């Protein structure tokens, strides 16, 4: 007997029981046409070699375990940052089920989003009727203040024109003429989720600032003293945006978070389900045209949006997911310069505390080798912090990175002796990284949950920082920006280092001479 009422075991224990081990062995021996342990070991060893790496890097068509998702996911991320805004994805419905699951698994929060449920007939005749009915149903049921439409690959391949469709739907009375429906074409076969974020934000900016698709007058910019803030696609948006608000408030800055999704992915459990919560108000979105400048925390995630904003006469400043002392310094100095507000003593003290913490701990990080993978801006920010901590980045990889990103990261590496010998990989995937980790091993790896397969295969300990993080809870609630956010990142890195140190020294009578209680 295996499970007993006294002690119900979980799957990871249950299937280690001898009767299950035997069952699996018999299945393998008799029915699976198994090639044998020796052959598996031979091939497994071969996959760790330089020869295999060369073949792996010679790949031109196949992508294995990419660290990127598709545009429409970024569109949904951007859309939920506005007050009572319902993301509406024009295309086949399965995609929306995936976007909702993906965000829900990361944030452990509901994600509301509808689809126009296009099927074969829409593939032949176009999805106009789906748009007409879909907008009407979404408006009636979910009572949004705004609907943000984006597309999938299906709608793009058949060439549906969102602007015309929305106009048509409004004429048919699906939603009132003056109701805000923004749109962005977000084909899944171009770019990645960060491109979708960018296109959607650009669409929203254009909608509010440029006369709502020709239905009202364009806004005339009357510059004021406020600044706009764009966070970019960010798995830590809940903690980060709140941290940025705290910093702005400490500084006395007049600001608009453009696309504030921090509340909708962190609603309370108090007996009520809030489909919408918080968000940038539509009035704020429109008034943002008057701001003095727009600050983006992620350059490669907001290229088009920033260009559009710059065209309206604002100064635009972009960072690369700044984390650490210098990154945060630059951010605060830019805010201070643009707004004319001084950096308050409270933040200077926070800076000092972070420097203090680094001083206390960097001995444990100094000279350690790191692999970093994820979105382009995040990789840059983390690499800069690692250099600051005396760590040595060795591989930096972004599947959705481009040549410009590669060059920018290389320049960062060249600026520090700790960056010597590090290589940057744009467009490569986690199977490429696997080869690198075998042939040029590192001490630690920083990235999202999918890195756990690399951790298993290569034995490189994984520090979870990125999106998605499915297998740990609540990380997204802690910021990684600002001095306090950097402190969180520092602690996360150190915890892993100490855990590994303990693991290496905890065998009684063998390795435990240095199983210390003080580290």
């Amino acid at each position, binding site marked *: 007997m295996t499970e*007993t009422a006294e002690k119900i075991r979980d799957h990871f224990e249950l299937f280690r029981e001898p009767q299950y081990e035997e069952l699996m062995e018999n299945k393998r021996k008799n029915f699976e046409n198994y090639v044998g342990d020796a052959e598996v070991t031979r091939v497994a060893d071969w996959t760790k070699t330089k020869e295999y790496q060369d073949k792996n890097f010679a790949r031109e068509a196949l992508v294995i375990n990419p660290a990127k998702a*598709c545009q429409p996911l970024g569109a949904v991320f951007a859309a939920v940052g506005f007050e009572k805004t319902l993301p509406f994805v024009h295309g086949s*419905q399965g995609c929306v089920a995936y976007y909702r699951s993906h965000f829900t698994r990361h944030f452990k929060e509901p994600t509301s989003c509808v689809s126009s449920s296009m099927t074969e007939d829409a593939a032949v005749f176009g999805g106009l009727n789906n748009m007409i009915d*879909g907008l009407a149903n979404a408006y009636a*049921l979910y009572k949004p203040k705004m609907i943000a439409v984006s597309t999938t690959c299906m709608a793009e391949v058949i060439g549906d024109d969102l602007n015309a469709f929305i106009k048509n739907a409004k004429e048919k009375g699906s939603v009132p003429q003056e109701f805000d429906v923004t749109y962005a074409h977000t084909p*899944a076969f171009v770019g990645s989720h960060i491109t979708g974020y960018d296109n959607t934000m650009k669409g929203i900016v254009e909608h509010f600032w440029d006369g709502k698709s020709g239905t009202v007058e364009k806004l005339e910019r009357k510059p004021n003293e406020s600044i706009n803030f764009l966070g970019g696609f960010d798995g830590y948006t809940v903690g980060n945006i709140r941290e940025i608000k705290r910093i702005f408030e400490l500084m006395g800055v007049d600001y608009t978070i453009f696309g504030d999704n921090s509340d909708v992915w962190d609603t309370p459990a108090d007996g009520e*389900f809030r489909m919408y919560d918080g968000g940038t108000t539509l009035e704020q979105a429109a008034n943002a045209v008057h701001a003095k400048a727009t600050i983006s925390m992620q350059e490669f995630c907001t290229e088009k949006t920033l260009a559009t904003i710059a065209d309206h006469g604002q100064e635009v400043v972009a960072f690369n997911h700044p984390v650490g002392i210098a990154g945060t310094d630059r951010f605060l100095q830019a805010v201070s310069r643009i707004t004319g507000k001084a950096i308050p003593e409270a933040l200077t003290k926070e800076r000092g505390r972070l420097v203090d913490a680094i001083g206390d701990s960097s001995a444990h990080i100094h000279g350690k080798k790191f692999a970093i993978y994820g979105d382009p801006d995040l990789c840059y920010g983390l690499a800069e912090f690692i250099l600051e901590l005396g760590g040595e980045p060795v591989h930096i990889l972004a599947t959705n990175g481009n040549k410009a990103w590669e060059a920018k990261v290389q320049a960062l590496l060249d600026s520090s002796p700790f960056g010597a010998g590090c290589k940057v990989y744009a467009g490569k995937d986690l199977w490429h990284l696997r080869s690198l980790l075998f042939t040029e091993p590192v001490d630690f790896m920083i990235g999202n949950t999918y890195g756990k397969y690399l951790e298993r295969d290569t034995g490189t300990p994984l520090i979870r920082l990125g999106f998605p993080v499915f297998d740990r809870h609540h990380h997204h609630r802690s910021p990684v920006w600002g001095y306090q956010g950097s402190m969180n990142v520092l602690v996360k890195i150190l915890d892993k280092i100490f855990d590994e140190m303990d693991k290496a020294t905890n065998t009684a009578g063998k390795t435990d001479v240095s199983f210390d209680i003080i580290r």
Partner: protein
Amino acid sequence: MSTAVAESPADIKERNKKLIGEVLEAYPDKSAKRRAKHLNTYDAEKAECSVKSNIKSIPGVMTIRGCAYAGSKGVVWGPIKDMVHISHGPVGCGQYSWGSRRNYYKGTTGVDTFGTMQFTSDFQEKDIVFGGDKKLGKIIDEIQELFPLSKGISVQSECPIGLIGDDIEAVSKAKSKQYDGKPIIPVRCEGFRGVSQSLGHHIANDVIRDWVFDKAGEKNAGFQSTPYDVAIIGDYNIGGDAWASRILLEEMGLRVIAQWSGDGTIAELENTPKAKLNILHCYRSMNYITRHMEEKFGIPWVEYNFFGPTKIEASLREIASKFDDKIKEGAERVIAKYKPQMEAVIAKYRPRLEGKKVMLYVGGLRPRHVIGAYEDLGMEVVGTGYEFGHNDDYQRTTHYVKDGTLIYDDVTGYEFEKFVEKVRPDLVGSGVKEKYIFQKMGVPFRQMHSWDYSGPYHGYDGFGIFARDMDIAINAPVWKLTKAPWS
């Protein structure tokens, strides 16, 4: 939470009728008319649940359904562990379905098994413009080079493939020939086909028929049959479900020659036509292939239900009834062996769960199959419905549900929230997209697709975990903390 006052079936029916009327009022007329056909209350005097099903979802609502790709790659093909499954098209579909279904398997990932990997052709704009066939051919070459122990390849089409008219069949055939008949299998499961994941299951089954069975040829000539050979069909080994089932079948004296498709291999698929009996758990996703095997190879099939001791016991006897006394005795032996274990589980958990009301909304077979397991624990299912059920699923549901049960087909997020708000069950069992909505409302929840990352729930070992998990959900102290003392 549930009201203490006992309601009569007539009262319940009246309330449900009113409730359905209320939710329909929120829709525009055209959509209200369409949705009205999918909502009903089960009337024990009638033969059917009387809801329409397997019809297009209405646009602009939060349908919980997926697509044909999800049905083929996510359900049927993905768990075949020794093959490489290419998500052919843009990067997203493969990324979102990567490892999320927990189809447990044993093997060396990346070497001889590939279950938790994401292979994609990562379509770019130029592939849309010029077509992806050439690229697909190259991908197959690269797989052959980098994964020499892979036993086959499947090509899971995403939306653009069908729209741009790629000939994945021709590429697959040519490459299979080039690689000595290695199974290279094109699956036309583009997401826009059909109305839900259901068509993807059907397409995947048909492809197994045409591209595995018909081409297996002499491959399985050396297979030594026994009179007790069975195949598990329609168990995806979520959290190890199929293993917890297989162990019982083997204990009763049967030989399980194939597992479909959790922890499955191409060799097992190829050998299945040699089975003496196909035993079918997920009727919805795999009845097509068992019907085919019955017609073509004369293999009978029987449905079974391994949720909860009552249904397990009945199913073991039903399966045994197709064999001789040795197996019948084996079934009795297995039932007797686990009886004390099951009694102990029930003795421990039933007092904590007795009388609790449950609302379900899942896919496949679970909206009906798990009802018996809840009843074994003294719980009552008061509402249920299918994401992608067909008429025959709803017919089968009548054997499980009580008079007055609320039935909702392809429920929309709006309807489901309103139903739960009014019925106030003690537990909702549905998917991850629904989980946190209800928990915020203060209603305990269990994911009934992924078992909330627990499991197995099938078989006797699974029932212990099921009972414990329902106790964890319902009796967690957190539900008493929902309201602040001052509010």
